[in-house]
C-alpha cells in the first residue's frame, strides 16, 4: 500500500461502503432487500462493515415467493440471527390468499413479487430500498443509476433518469416515491466471487457442486424438488451441479460443475463463456426486453 494504490476489489468495497453510509445519513427509512442469494449476502456483509462497530441501522426485507430452496431459507434465518438485524418477510403466498395478486397459470411467481414488494414498501414507508443488482448482469440493468428513482407507482422510467454526477447521489423523494439503491452496481460476477473468497463469507450449500437428481428442460438442468417434478416424457438423472444464481427453486437451473470450494468456483467463473443469467434463469428467457419490462413495473 506504500504507493497509495489499492486493488480494484478494495476500491469497489470502498465505493459500496460510501453508498451505504450516504443512504443511512440522508434517507428516512431505508431497507435492504435480502433474499439469501450471493449478491444480497455480500450486501449485508458490506452494510455490517460500513457501520461497525455499530449495528446495521436498517432492517432487511425478504419478498418471499414461498418457492425457495430450503437451504437458502435456513441460511437467511441463520444470518439474520447472527447479525441481529430485523427481518421483515413480505409473503407472496399471503398476498395470493388475500386476493391481492393472482397466481399465473404456469405457477411462476417472479412477476407477482413486484406488487407485493411495492405494497410492503408502502406499508412500512420505506423511501430507500437497497438491491443487489449489478450492471453486468443484464442489458437493462447496465443502464441504471446507482440511486434509481421510482415514482408513486414504483415505476422506473429509463428514458428520464436523474443525472448522476461524481459521487453526489440525489436521494430526495416525496412521500410515496422511492429510491432503489444499488451498491454493487459496478461489480461483476467474478468480483463478487473473489470478494466472497477474500472475506471468507459463508454461503448456502446450493452454490457448491453436489450430485443432484435433475431433469433437462431446453438444455437447462433443473433439480427435482418440491417445486420441480418430472413432466411426462422427462427422465430424471443424476448430475453434479451447482447454482450460479439463486432465484426461485422452480425457475433456477443448475450448471454442470465439479466446483466444491470457493477457489474452484472462482477458477470456473474466470473461464466461463456464458453469463450467469443466461446459464441459469428461466425467468429471463421470455423476451429480449423481459428485464426492462419488469423493472419498469417496479421489479428489483
Amino acid at each position, binding site marked *: *500500500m506504500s*504507493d*497509495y*494504490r*489499492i*486493488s*480494484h*476489489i*478494495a*476500491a469497489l468495497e*470502498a465505493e459500496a*461502503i*460510501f453508498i451505504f*453510509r450516504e443512504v*443511512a*445519513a*440522508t434517507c428516512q427509512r431505508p431497507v435492504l432487500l435480502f433474499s439469501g442469494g450471493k449478491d444480497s449476502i455480500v450486501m449485508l456483509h458490506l452494510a*455490517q*462493515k*460500513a*457501520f*461497525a*462497530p*455499530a*449495528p446495521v441501522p436498517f432492517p432487511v426485507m425478504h419478498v418471499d415467493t414461498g418457492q425457495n430452496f430450503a437451504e437458502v431459507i435456513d441460511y437467511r434465518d441463520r444470518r439474520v440471527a447472527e447479525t441481529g438485524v430485523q427481518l421483515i418477510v413480505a409473503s407472496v403466498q399471503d398476498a395470493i390468499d388475500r386476493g391481492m395478486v393472482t397466481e399465473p397459470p404456469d405457477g411462476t411467481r417472479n412477476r407477482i413479487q413486484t406488487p407485493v414488494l411495492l405494497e410492503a414498501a408502502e406499508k412500512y414507508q420505506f423511501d430507500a430500498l437497497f438491491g443487489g443488482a449489478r*450492471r*453486468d448482469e*443484464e*442489458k*437493462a440493468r*447496465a*443502464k441504471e*443509476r446507482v440511486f434509481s428513482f421510482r415514482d408513486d407507482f414504483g415505476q422506473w422510467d*429509463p*428514458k428520464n*433518469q*436523474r*443525472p*448522476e*454526477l*461524481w*459521487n*453526489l447521489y*440525489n436521494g*430526495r423523494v416525496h412521500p410515496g416515491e422511492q429510491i432503489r439503491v444499488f451498491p454493487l452496481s*459496478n461489480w*461483476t460476477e467474478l468480483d463478487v466471487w*473473489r470478494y466472497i*473468497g*477474500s472475506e471468507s463469507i459463508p454461503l448456502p450449500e446450493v452454490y457448491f457442486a453436489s450430485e443432484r437428481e435433475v431433469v433437462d428442460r431446453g438444455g437447462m438442468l433443473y433439480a427435482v424438488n418440491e417445486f420441480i417434478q418430472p413432466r411426462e416424457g422427462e427422465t430424471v438423472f443424476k448430475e453434479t451441479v451447482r447454482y450460479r444464481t439463486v432465484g426461485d427453486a422452480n425457475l433456477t437451473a443448475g450448471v454442470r460443475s465439479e466446483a466444491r470450494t*470457493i*477457489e474452484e468456483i*472462482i*477458477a470456473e467463473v474466470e473461464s466461463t463463456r*456464458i*453469463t450467469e443469467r*443466461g*446459464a441459469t434463469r428461466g425467468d429471463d428467457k421470455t423476451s429480449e*426486453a423481459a428485464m*426492462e419490462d419488469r423493472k419498469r413495473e417496479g421489479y428489483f
Partner: protein
Amino acid sequence: MTDVLSSREDTHELLRFATAGSVDDGKSTLIGRLLFDSKSLFDDQWDAVEAVSAGRGDEYTDLALLTDGLRSEREQGITIDVAYRYFSTPERKFIIADTPGHIQYTRNMVTGASTADLALILVDARKGLVEQSRRHAFLCSLLRVPHMVLCVNKMDLVDYDEAVFKQIENEFKAFATKLEVPDLTVIPISALKGDNVVNRSENMPWFQGPSLLHHLEKVHIASDRNLVDVRFPVQHVIRPHSSDNHDYRGYAGQIASGVMKPGDEVMVLPSGFTSRIASIETADGPLDEAFPPLSVTVRLEDELDVSRGDMLCRPGNQPRVSQDIEAMVCWMDEARPLRLRGKYAIKHTTSDARAVVKDVQYQLDVNTLHRDESASELKLNEIGRVTLRTTKPLLCDDYRRNRATGGFIIIDESDNRTVGAGIIV
C-alpha cells in the same frame, strides 16, 4: 490463502473511461468492437445480438446492440442513456461508460464523463468536427477528465486516407488549445472493421501510434489523484450505544484527497477547532495511513462537536469557507431554465445547502467559446458562469485542484430532480 483469493493484494489498476462525440459517430460500435476483439463477450450475449440483428435483416451484426439495451434505443438506433460495461485484460480492469451523442441527452453524457479518467471523443472521418464534437470535448475539459483520446472513426469510408485524418487532427488540436486538455492522443480507427481498436491496422501503415486498447492499458493514471490536500468530508457519525462501546464516537467517510495518519493534527471545519487523529479504523482493523478512495472511520483525541457535512483538513492547508460561490454551471433541465434570483437546493461533498442565483455572468457558445454577457438564464444543455449565494458556507476548492471538493449538483426543490452540475472556479 491461495492465489486466487489474494485479490486484495492484486493491485490491478482500474481505469474508468467514457465515450463522447456526436450522434452516429460510432461510439457504441466501438465499445462493441473493443469487447468483441478483446474476447470479453460471453457467448450468450453475442448470440442474442446476432439473433436481433439477423431478425432485423442487418447486413452484418450490429455491435452497438451490445450496449444499446433499451427497447427505445433499439427502435430508434441511437443511445439514450449511459450503458456501463466491464472488462479486464492482464494489464488493467476497465469500467466503460458508453454515452449518447444526441444533444437532447447531453446530461447523460455528463453523467458518464463525470467519473471518467479518460474520454474517447469520436469523430466521423467523413464529417469532421461538428458542433456536438466540440460541445463534448468542451464538457470533458470542463469536467477535467484527465486524459483524452480523439478517435477519428469510419476510416474505412474514406479509403484510410492519411490526409483526411491529418486534417481532422489539426482542426481538433487547434480547438483543444482553447480548452484545458492535459493529455491528448489521436488515433485513426474503424470501429466497424476493427482497425487500430485492439489490433494495429494493416490498412494504415502510415500510422505509427498504438492501437486504442494498447493505449488504454498503458496510459499513466497513478499521478492523477490528489494526495496533497487532506480533505475528509464527514459522512456519518458512528455511535454504537452499546455497553462495550459506550464512549465510541467515530467519523465515517471516504477520503476525498490527501493522506491521513494517526497522530496528524487536524482542523474541523467550519468550526475551526483542532485536534489530533487518534486512530483510523475499518471493520478489518486500524490503518497506519489512509488515502483516496478508502472509506474509513476517523477518531479524534478530543471530544469535539463534529457532524455530517463538516470537513477534516490540515490546519496549514484548508479549503475555502465561503457562501459566495463562483461556478461554471451546465444546465440539465428541459422544463425550466436556470434563472437569475432562482432558488435551488445544492449538494456539495456530504453537505446540503440552499442557494440563490445572484448573477448570470455569461453564457458560453460551445462552438466558438464566445461569451454572451447579455444572458440572464441558462436553458437545457447551456453552459455559463454564475454567482451563487448559499445559506451556509461551503468547504470547497477550485474544481481544477480537487474534483471531489470542487463539484456540486443543483436540485429543483419542487420535484427533487437534479437539474444542474456546478464546477467551482
